[in-house]
């Protein structure tokens, strides 16, 4: 049985009608699970929040596949992630910012040797803490630009704001990060 067919029974495809051109769900999960989870973690700074958010995103994507039309899948994925993140923010007002101190950092894809990896991990945690202190609208823009490598035009489409506002949010986000990471920035190469 194909992975797509395994999913029919929950009614996500509207009573079992799978569009012929619907992307294969297993392929989507294999290709984008890390992307969605990473973005969720960068936005929330908390493993449990990230899992819940990422799960929410995948459920929304799965339900939306029936209506998905061939086009910019990644743009849809990022927009879905941002919308789910905003919905959670609205519900919770504020995600825990001190969560990183309480938990083990998640595994990361790195090929570095152990000592370097430990030092890097510490820096990553410092940067991540700074990131979650940004206002959500700056955080979204910085994550999409610096972590996901999206252009201003793509970010404008994802966030549904003018490109000039994207530029402004990224700049303000970086200014805030510069202050939060001042000692690391000035000590840098």
């Amino acid at each position, binding site marked *: 049985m194909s*992975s797509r067919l*395994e*999913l029919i*029974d*929950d009614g*996500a495809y509207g009573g079992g009608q799978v569009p012929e051109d619907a992307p294969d*769900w*297993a392929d989507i*999960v294999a290709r984008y*699970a*890390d*992307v*969605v*989870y*990473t973005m969720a*973690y*960068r936005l929330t700074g908390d493993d*449990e*929040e990230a*899992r*819940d958010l*990422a*799960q*929410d995103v*995948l*459920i929304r994507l*799965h339900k939306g596949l029936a209506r998905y039309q061939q086009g910019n899948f990644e743009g849809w994925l990022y927009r879905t992630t941002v919308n789910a993140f905003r919905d959670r923010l609205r519900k919770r007002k504020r995600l825990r910012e001190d969560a990183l101190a309480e938990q083990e950092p*998640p*595994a*990361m*894809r*790195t090929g570095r040797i152990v000592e370097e990896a430990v030092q*890097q991990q510490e*820096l*990553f945690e410092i*940067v*991540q803490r700074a*990131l979650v202190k940004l206002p959500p609208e700056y955080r979204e823009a*910085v994550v999409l*630009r*610096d*972590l996901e*490598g999206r*252009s*201003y035009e793509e970010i404008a489409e994802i966030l549904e704001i003018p490109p000039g506002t994207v*530029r*402004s949010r*990224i*700049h303000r986000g*970086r*200014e805030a*990060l*510069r202050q939060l*990471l001042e000692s*690391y*920035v000035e000590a*840098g*190469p």
Partner: protein
Amino acid sequence: MTNFYYYGGRHVEREILSALIDGELSPTERRFVHEHLQECSACREAADEFGHIQGMMGDLPRLVAPEAFVSAALRPKKSIGTKLFGGKRKFVAGGLAFTAVGITVAGLFVPQRASTPPIDVFFERQVSLHAGEESGGQVLFAVNNR
């Protein structure tokens, strides 16, 4: 440190410098800014800072999605079930436990109905009902309507 950099004056706006390192300036803007940076150490320093911030962010690694999360994603029914309790698992588990204890304690104070069979009889009946269920009868319906 100077906080703002001005076009047409001595310095370039910091927002422009931020956009420069993203490669998001027009060719004309880029040429102008590059010419300015050759002569202005303050703007070069500001651009370097943005570049360093961008580098630190860009160095954050791609994380590995937890295996359980990926497995659940391939079984949306379970995912949705988990989602309903997502983030509130401890609360829900505690609530269920509290409810179970409450029902048990309350049961001690409720007079036994004459028709309620002793507990051992009930278990025997349940076993026989399940046996009937396996044989294909309407027994489950009968259990729900006791």
